[in-house]
């Protein structure tokens, strides 16, 4: 066997064998890693803006200066979180549990149950046009959407959780860390949770009821009874529109509409400690009111008819009752016209699932 000069310590066969082994090793070292799936790229911020369609005639959406503009990713994250039961301490209650789309983002229960069947004392308010609210909860205790969400997340009668636990739960989830990086470019934190929910809630805009179409010139949008009801609603005789005012049928003020003969729920007083605020609650919007029964702060009125009858009777004469609440002298027919008009404030499109 001829020996190669540079391999004179090996035979040709041995050299070939060693060379083959070395070549195989090189192939394994180089090619095998190249065949491995590459590391997944980290999710990056998606700044695609979310274009809000504000209904005709509505003012611009009020958004605090410290918030970044809405993006598709933020709104989509907020939509998911809104229905996410994992945000509650026992995984059974989501925002959507008490704020159901088909019920105008309220729920047809006087006082809904939260985790473990616990109940507070108040009806779940509608989220119709909630972006325009200047304060939140019946007594106006929360100053913005984020504060309201945090409160419900942590209230033991609602979702019973705490910010720390919520963040840990979402960080351990298979998808939320990625969704947060897309929406905010950062890891899950409580402000991100609250901002995403707020971004979604600002999309809950309702301005396409038959009343709106009538106002925009479609005279067939309201029938005769509804038109009579509309006239009554905006009349000096009823003064309904004094409190249920403007594009969203609410002044945003705190009023006592005389629904408590004795003040069981002190309402706005809990914020201000002023005796003149006892029994006062935030005037709610009447948009979609047909679908948000039962009514008033504790759901004590089961139907619109019962509410109109209450006002027609002049309330229960509570100490801080608004002077606007007084006997109206409406006939049964007029009361029905008023109810029919209120039902015409329903925006069917708003009630679609999210």
């Amino acid at each position, binding site marked *: 066997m001829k020996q190669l000069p540079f391999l004179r310590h090996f035979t040709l066969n041995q050299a070939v064998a060693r060379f083959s082994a070395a070549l195989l090793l090189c192939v394994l070292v180089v090619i095998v890693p190249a065949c491995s799936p590459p590391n997944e790229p980290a999710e990056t911020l998606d700044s695609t803006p979310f274009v809000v369609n504000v209904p005709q005639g509505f003012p611009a959406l*009020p958004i*605090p200066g*410290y918030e970044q503009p809405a993006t598709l990713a933020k709104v989509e994250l907020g939509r998911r979180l809104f229905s996410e039961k994992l945000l509650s301490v026992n995984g059974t209650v989501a925002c959507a549990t008490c704020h159901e789309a088909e019920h105008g983002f309220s729920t047809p229960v006087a006082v809904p149950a939260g985790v473990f069947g616990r109940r*507070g*004392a108040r009806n779940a308010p509608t989220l119709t046009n909630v972006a325009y609210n*200047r*304060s939140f*909860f019946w*007594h*106006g*205790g*929360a*100053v*913005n959407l*984020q*504060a*309201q969400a*945090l*409160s419900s997340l*942590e*209230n033991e009668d609602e979702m019973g959780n*705490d*910010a*720390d636990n919520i*963040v840990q739960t979402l960080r351990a989830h298979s998808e939320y860390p990625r969704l947060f990086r897309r929406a905010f470019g950062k890891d899950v*934190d*409580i*402000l991100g949770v*609250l901002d995403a929910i707020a971004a979604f809630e600002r999309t809950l805009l309702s301005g396409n009821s038959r009343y709106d179409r009538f106002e925009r010139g479609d005279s067939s949008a309201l029938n005769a009874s509804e038109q009579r009801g509309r006239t009554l609603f905006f009349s000096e005789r009823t003064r309904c529109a004094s409190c249920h005012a403007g594009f969203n049928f609410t*002044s*945003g*003020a*705190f009023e006592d509409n005389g629904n408590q003969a004795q003040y*069981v*729920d*002190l309402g*706005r007083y*809990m*914020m*201000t*400690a*002023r005796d003149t*605020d006892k029994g006062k609650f935030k005037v709610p919007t009447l948009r979609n009111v047909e679908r948000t029964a039962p009514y008033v702060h504790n759901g004590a009125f089961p139907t619109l008819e019962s509410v109109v009858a209450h006002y027609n009777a002049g309330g229960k004469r509570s100490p801080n009752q608004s002077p606007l609440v007084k006997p109206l002298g409406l006939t049964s027919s007029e009361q029905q016209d008023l109810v029919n008009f209120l039902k015409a404030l329903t925006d069917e499109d708003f009630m679609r699932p999210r």
Partner: protein
Amino acid sequence: MKSLLRLTVTCAICGIVLFASSCQTVTPVDNSPGTLALNFMPMVGTRAFDTTSTFAVNGRNVRFLQGQIYLSNITLLKSDGSTVKLTDDALSVRATATGDTSAAAPISITDRVLYYIHQRGEASRSVPNIPAGQYTGVRFTVGVENPINQIDAGEVLRLRPQHPLALLSPAPSGAGRNWWAWNSGYIFARIEGLCDTSAAGTGTPNTRFFYHIGATGFTAPISITRSFEVKANQTTTLSLMFDYAKVMAGLNLQNPQERSTMVIRPAASFPNDRPLGQRIVANIGTAVSAQ
């Protein structure tokens, strides 16, 4: 030779005189400010507060888990009769004025607010830029007044994450939330723990008590007489003691109605919250002393 010697001696004398005169420096008065370390030391009677010991409070065993206190409106009283209000870099945040339904307007907060978290051993806060001089006492408020109590702690968290008024989020272990999102107000004094409710009261504390004091009208003004001097470029310590036993004076821990209050809970469901809160505020007024 003699002339040279004389010249040398003269020069030496001149040199000594010049050197000596140059040593007679005039020390300028230093008007630089100093730093005040305001200690708010948690006590339970004569013992130091902690979260592992068992204390006897109102005749029964108690273990504290949380003690979180806000101080604001802190004013030092100088011996010349003038006052020095403790201030901070301005914080511009929105405040919802009580009863005002119009859009929240921003306010500028320059008050130096101090937040003590006693269960974490945080009992000392340093405040710089205190004018040097002699002082005779200090006044402050336990809690924060309106409109500071009407701002959004979440907004503060975005703007100044380390500010004492920033929302605690995520809550550091052992510290409960310092702000009621539901009623938009700070928890001025947050006191929690366990007590023994057995007849003898000498057993292991295992029943929860909690007192969350806040809301308009639930602050406690404090005035302390204590001489101290702040020196230029130095830190002066002013130690005050906060006695949790005095805060709970007169509370019957066997009575469930006296084991808890969150002042802002609905009165219909919790009719005792505000009266109990008022009792505790009155107690807080007696619980501070100078070391």
